[in-house]
């Protein structure tokens, strides 16, 4: 067997041009397959680490997944509002440690604006319980103060004290701006690798002041505007928010609180445990992931077929080689094994190169992915599942190699020592 492996590798090296193409096509397919898997894991890890320490996310009656997506990941459309009354009632409950009301709906140059309370910077944790940290400045002190995420600051080149104008609605380009009430950047948060990086935070009262002269989502007619200074004197306590996040004093109380909120008769509410809603999200995404994986698997099959056709093409011109081997005592079985080994070696080289390609692509695309989608890459090693997949690719190549090998075997039996041109 070792003699055959040596011959197979030298024979391949002799045909390294075509062999390299086979190896490369397998490598690309393997890189794609592993890339899809790792990207999925990255996305899950990234999502799972976006919020930690929050026991419940509460909004008006809607699907748990869309509530979670909107409030935590800041993806998708708003759910209905909840009253400030229920927020305050929950906050007063003895089992509740803290409550963070969240108000969404405005934007700044494509970045979402979140109205909240100063406690957000203390209780909103991410990853394994990391607190938000300020790279510069601090939480909002004035009504028109804003705290921006690291990406907002970096991409838009903002510094402390810069004025920004918020826009009504979530569009990238908005015609309804709050130009009359500009905000000032009071703090810039350190990078978290979560949607916080892409958020502009303002106080609930600031958000209220901005809309003080608006009615039913429409800007005031000219002449009926309230100036920024006049707005300071208005009643700025919000009556409604989009959702709120609850931290409980004990884990045990989470389910009771969840049930109480779901059963609350005052208004229709949905209370979700982030981890549970995430699991639901994975189930929803499972079909799409499955489709991606199926495509990647098909590309692997295509790569192996390419290798197969290269080996089959080479068989004709290698009949002499087989006759020479037979003449020195090689069995037809040896000829068979030689070709199977060849396929195995090609696939093995392809798999190794594919792993390299995948890591190279991840290292190259990682920063972009993180900026664009907030998916933090973790250049971890290969999982046992990856290794099993790679072994599966090599095994499939060995099986595929059995086809040309069987052809060569039969030819070796018929050709004998005669070399037909």
């Amino acid at each position: 067997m070792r003699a055959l492996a040596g011959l197979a590798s030298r024979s391949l090296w002799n045909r390294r041009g075509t062999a390299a193409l086979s190896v490369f096509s397998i490598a690309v397919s393997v890189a794609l397959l592993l890339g899809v898997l790792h990207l999925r894991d990255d996305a899950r890890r990234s999502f799972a680490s976006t919020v930690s320490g929050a026991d419940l996310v509460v909004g008006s009656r809607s699907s748990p997944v869309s509530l979670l997506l909107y409030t935590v990941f800041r993806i998708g459309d708003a759910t209905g509002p909840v009253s400030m009354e229920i927020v305050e009632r929950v906050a007063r409950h003895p089992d509740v440690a803290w409550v963070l009301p969240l108000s969404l709906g405005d934007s700044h140059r494509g970045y979402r604006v979140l109205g909240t309370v100063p406690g957000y910077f203390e209780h909103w944790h991410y990853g394994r319980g990391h607190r938000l940290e300020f790279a510069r400045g601090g939480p909002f002190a004035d009504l028109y103060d804003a705290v921006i995420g690291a990406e907002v600051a970096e991409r838009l080149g903002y510094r402390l004290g810069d004025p920004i104008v918020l826009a009504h609605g979530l569009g990238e380009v908005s015609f309804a701006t709050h130009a009359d009430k500009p905000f000032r950047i009071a703090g810039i948060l350190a990078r978290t690798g979560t949607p916080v990086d892409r958020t502009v935070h303002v106080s609930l009262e600031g958000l209220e002041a901005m809309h003080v002269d608006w009615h039913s989502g429409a800007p005031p007619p000219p002449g009926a505007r309230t100036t920024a200074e006049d707005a300071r004197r208005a009643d700025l306590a919000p009556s409604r928010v989009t959702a709120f996040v609850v931290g409980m004093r004990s884990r045990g109380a989470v389910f009771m609180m969840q049930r109480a909120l779901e059963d609350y008769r005052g208004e229709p509410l949905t209370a979700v445990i982030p981890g549970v809603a995430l699991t639901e999200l994975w189930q929803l995404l499972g079909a799409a992931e499955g489709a991606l994986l199926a495509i990647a698997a098909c590309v692997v099959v295509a790569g192996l077929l390419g290798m197969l056709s290269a080996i089959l093409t080479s068989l004709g011109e290698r009949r002499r080689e087989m006759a020479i081997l037979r003449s020195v005592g090689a069995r037809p079985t040896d000829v068979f094994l030689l070709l199977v080994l060849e396929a195995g070696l090609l696939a093995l080289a392809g798999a190794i190169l594919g792993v390299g390609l995948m890591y190279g692509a991840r290292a190259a695309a990682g920063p972009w992915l993180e900026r664009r989608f907030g998916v933090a890459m973790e250049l971890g090693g290969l999982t046992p599942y990856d290794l099993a997949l790679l072994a599966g690719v090599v095994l499939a190549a060995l099986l595929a190699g059995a086809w040309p090998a069987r052809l060569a075997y039969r030819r070796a039996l018929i050709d004998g020592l005669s070399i037909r041109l």
Partner: protein
Amino acid sequence: MTAPAAILLDSVRHGYEPGRPVLDVDHFSVATGERVFLAGPSGSGKSTLLGLVAGVLAPDAGHVEVLGTDLAGLRGADRDAFRGARIGVIFQMFNLLPYLSVLDNVLLPTRFSPARRARLPDPRAEAARLLTALGLGGEDLLGRGVGALSIGQQQRVAAARALLGRPALVIADEPTSSLDWDARAQFLELLLAECTSAGSTLLFVSHDRTLAPRFDRSVELGELNRARAAA
């Protein structure tokens, strides 16, 4: 013939399609140590005869005995092992694996035949000795690729491979027909000398009858093969 037969064919028939034998030989034998010239144009059933003697093919009917062993009594893999251990083969051309060095080409039988490997205390030294004896001396040549060799040199490397480990039988299938006249005479000289010193029986097939006088005996395959006569 007093010596025991190295090759013995008895009522042998073989074909690739049913009812159409390519080879039909009543009797053919080569004595041990004998150097036989077998004259046969292409299409005379020559390749089939050599395939049967080398144990690569099994006859449809009849008895093939090589070096005292009845090949019909061996399984396919055992015939391969038998060939690897006791027979050396030289082809007309393209004898060498392009991806192996000169030395590795000569040593190729030792990869497949433990028996032949066992007969060689130092395979490398023996390979070098054979190459030198065949006029391909020089250590620098051993590690070189075979692509740079002339056809005459390639044939000598093939002869060294066939003779490695002193096989009892050497089969040469038109080994000189791609060589020019000078190279042909020189190659034949060296091959015959090495076979004699190794004590190997030589079955040499060629269509070039001018070579025949240098052998112990000459046989016409056309007369031997009744399948051709009938066709």
